[in-house]
């Protein structure tokens, strides 16, 4: 879709402003579970969204095609589909494709067409280029140059489902109660300066990374200019996009572990850094000195997910809520405790993390409460 920002942000404001409900559930044992509970939980926070956006990310979604990139693509018309499919055939090997099953749902008006493709990069890629870089480049090309099409999910063994409506309506529309995954994130959106647009809903995704986000980044201007220096083009003017690119830079390109990435995005205060033991102090000091332009300032809570990992993070002074719950091998992250209690009334542990303190769930690893979080300051 040409000039995405115009669709996403027709008033040409600096950025899209919105607030939201977010929810995440992960079974760290890797056991897949149905979306029914997650849908129930996010719909319990109905009043935190306004019907202009809802979405879900599911991991472990396509075990039969686990080795192939799964594209979820929305089309405004058939012509766009034909053109895009020609592009896909020219640049990839399509293993399987099908329409994404949906059902008519009250409140869901005039949805685009949804198709999914399982693809192999095959021999199309220049040998010196990494698979992921090739894929990102092609996704960006489709989104920027072909009209009336938007690739909104492109990772392996995962998928994003999103659109305009309340999250429970989106779930019904995409029949998400019929899917299973070991990690689910969900989002209900309350935008204030933009009409709903199907691609503008959360989760925001690139490769298998997804971000759901409640908040507004007051440091957006600084973060954006910093990322532009590293070659990222912030086209959608959403602060969530900035978060996704920051993650790509820090994790994929600069090889920082998630514990340290959290300390870049929500760094400890200088005074707290000064009180750290030697070694750790120099590390935190250097991270903040070098990556000051990526400090995300202003109110936010994120749930970031990729294969095998779910991370909850708030801003340094926790201006937006995040509650953590644990039950057995299940880890829950939510804007409100009530949503967790609704589907898992008897929790083993429940707490509110400190501002800037990441809560990380990893496949096959103990839950966060069972260990001192790495990189923790307190």
């Amino acid at each position, binding site marked *: 879709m040409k000039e995405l920002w115009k669709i996403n942000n027709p008033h040409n404001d600096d950025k899209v402003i919105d607030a939201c409900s977010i929810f995440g559930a992960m079974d760290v044992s890797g056991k897949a579970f149905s979306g029914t509970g997650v849908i129930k939980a996010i719909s319990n926070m109905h009043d935190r969204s306004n019907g202009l956006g809802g979405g879900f990310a599911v991991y472990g979604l396509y075990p039969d095609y686990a080795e192939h990139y799964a594209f979820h693509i929305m089309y405004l018309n058939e012509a766009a589909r034909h053109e895009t499919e020609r592009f896909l055939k020219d640049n990839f090997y399509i293993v399987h494709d099908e329409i994404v099953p949906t059902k008519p749902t009250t409140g869901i008006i005039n949805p685009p067409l949804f198709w999914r493709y399982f693809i192999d990069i095959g021999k199309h890629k220049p040998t010196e280029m990494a698979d992921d870089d090739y894929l990102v480049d092609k996704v960006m090309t489709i989104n920027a140059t072909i009209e009336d099409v938007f690739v909104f999910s492109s990772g392996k063994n995962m998928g994003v489902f999103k659109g305009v409506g309340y999250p429970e309506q989106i779930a019904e529309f995409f029949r998400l109660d019929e899917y299973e995954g070991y990690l689910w994130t969900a989002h209900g959106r309350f935008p204030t300066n933009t009409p709903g647009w199907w691609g503008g809903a959360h989760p925001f995704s690139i490769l298998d990374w997804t971000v759901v986000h409640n908040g507004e980044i007051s440091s957006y201007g600084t973060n954006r200019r910093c990322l532009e220096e590293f070659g990222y083009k912030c086209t959608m003017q959403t602060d969530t996009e900035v978060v996704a690119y920051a993650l790509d830079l820090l994790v994929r390109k600069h090889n920082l572990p998630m*514990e*340290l990435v959290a300390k870049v995005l929500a*760094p400890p205060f*200088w005074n707290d850094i000064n009180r750290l033991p030697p070694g750790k102090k120099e590390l935190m000091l250097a991270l903040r*000195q070098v990556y*000051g332009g990526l400090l995300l300032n202003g*109110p936010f809570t994120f749930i970031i997910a990729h294969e095998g990992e779910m991370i909850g993070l708030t801003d340094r*002074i926790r201006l937006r809520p995040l509650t953590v719950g644990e039950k057995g091998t299940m880890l829950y992250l939510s804007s409100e405790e009530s949503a967790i209690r609704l589907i898992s009334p008897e929790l083993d542990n429940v707490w509110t993390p400190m501002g800037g303190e990441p809560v990380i769930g990893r496949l096959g690893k103990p839950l966060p409460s069972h260990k001192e979080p790495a990189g923790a300051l307190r």
Partner: protein
Amino acid sequence: MKTLVPPQFRVVRDPERCIQCQVCVNQCSFNAQYFDAEDKVVRTREENCVGCHRCAALCPTRALTITRNPMDYKANLNWKSGDIEDIWRQAESGGMLLTGMGNDKGYRIYWDHLLLNASQVTNPSIDPLREPMELTTYIGRKPDRVHVSADGVKLETTLAPQVKLEIPVMFAAMSYGAVSLNVHESLARAATEMGTLWNTGEGGLHETLYKYGQNTIVQVASGRFGVHSKYLHAGRVVEIKIGQGAKPGIGGHLPGEKVSADVALTRMIPRGSDALSPAPQHDIYSIEDLTQLIYALKEATNYTKPISVKIAAVHNSAAIASGMVRAGADIIVLDGLRGATGAAPKVIRDNVGIPIELALASVDSRLRQEGIRNQASLVISGGIRNSGDVAKAIALGADAVYIGTAALVALGCHVCQQCHTGKCAWGICTTDLGLTRRINPDIGAQRLSNLLRGWGLEIKDMLGGMGVNALESLRGNRLHLRGVGLSDTELEILGVRMAGS
């Protein structure tokens, strides 16, 4: 030759209040007040009055009022009084007109056309009285990325020297000789107390001030006055001065009358001799020569100190700054059109250079376009009047600012533009030992610290209002600025949108 230039000021003495105590006579260093021994009465030579208010401020009965001389010329929008009188002055002297302080012309002050943002509803403002609010800034070269060990706990990148500022406001270069030792001591002590830096200027560092070295920027200028190994090692930062906003492209001249015994010792020149700073650094005729001096200073200080390079803001600052960063400068200083001086030819001060706001915006943008903004910190000076100007400078892209005139005003300067005369009645820009005693370093340091403390509180309030709690989230954040009354071209150069859009 009798001068045609009328007195600039009128000194009005209220006879009801005046007690003939002669405080005004003793305080006026310009001989505008005198005691008529014959009539036993205090009188005024108005032609000597510079409007510095020293007499009025110290008059115990507040008997004195200084007003502009209301002498009017035939109205003429082309030939204003200053233009006419400057011609008379030159017709009578045959020389260049000298002046002090910064450009006083009506060039647009862009700070006054930029407005800051604040949070409402969709994100909360942060209350600095209740939440931490961070102004700490580290200046110095930053690498492109950080490397850590495989286990993610050990830092494997060695950073170039970083200097911590508790507040992003430093005291600008003002040399010993131009200003007095008491002024230097006031600046040094205030910088130390407030966790920031002061700058020696080009006249060396007096022996008694070496103890403040950790908060000192030692300057190396074209005259190389007082530059030696111990001096370089004493400072926290070494600054190469290429140019000055008040007089881009020309050198300096400290008249021999100001070179007292102590100044001579510190500058390493004979007492009473003129201290002439050449217009260029004679070992820098090209950018590669700058590299050599930068690395000579890095070698001399064993790579323990950032090297700063200061230039006047001129037409092609962006390209020059880019070259300076590539030449190895760790800090770039831009001194704008309104930057001040102890003495400069008036025609230079009033007509050469560009406004600092535009230079800052274009240099910051250029360095980002080239992906080298992280390699040097960007410091600006020349015309910062209040903490609002500081916040706007940070939002345009500066890491920190220098204040010179504002610091002197805190000490008592009344901006009368007589710095070049060496007769400063407030005891600031002079080395006359009778006058320099008028600055008490205990009080001076306190006044300067108070100013920075006040600005710090104000900057925290503005940051909190914008919904951020760390200064780095305002740095280069031009979305928090809007322009008013500016043309499209001006907005484009500033990288700022029109208010309301």
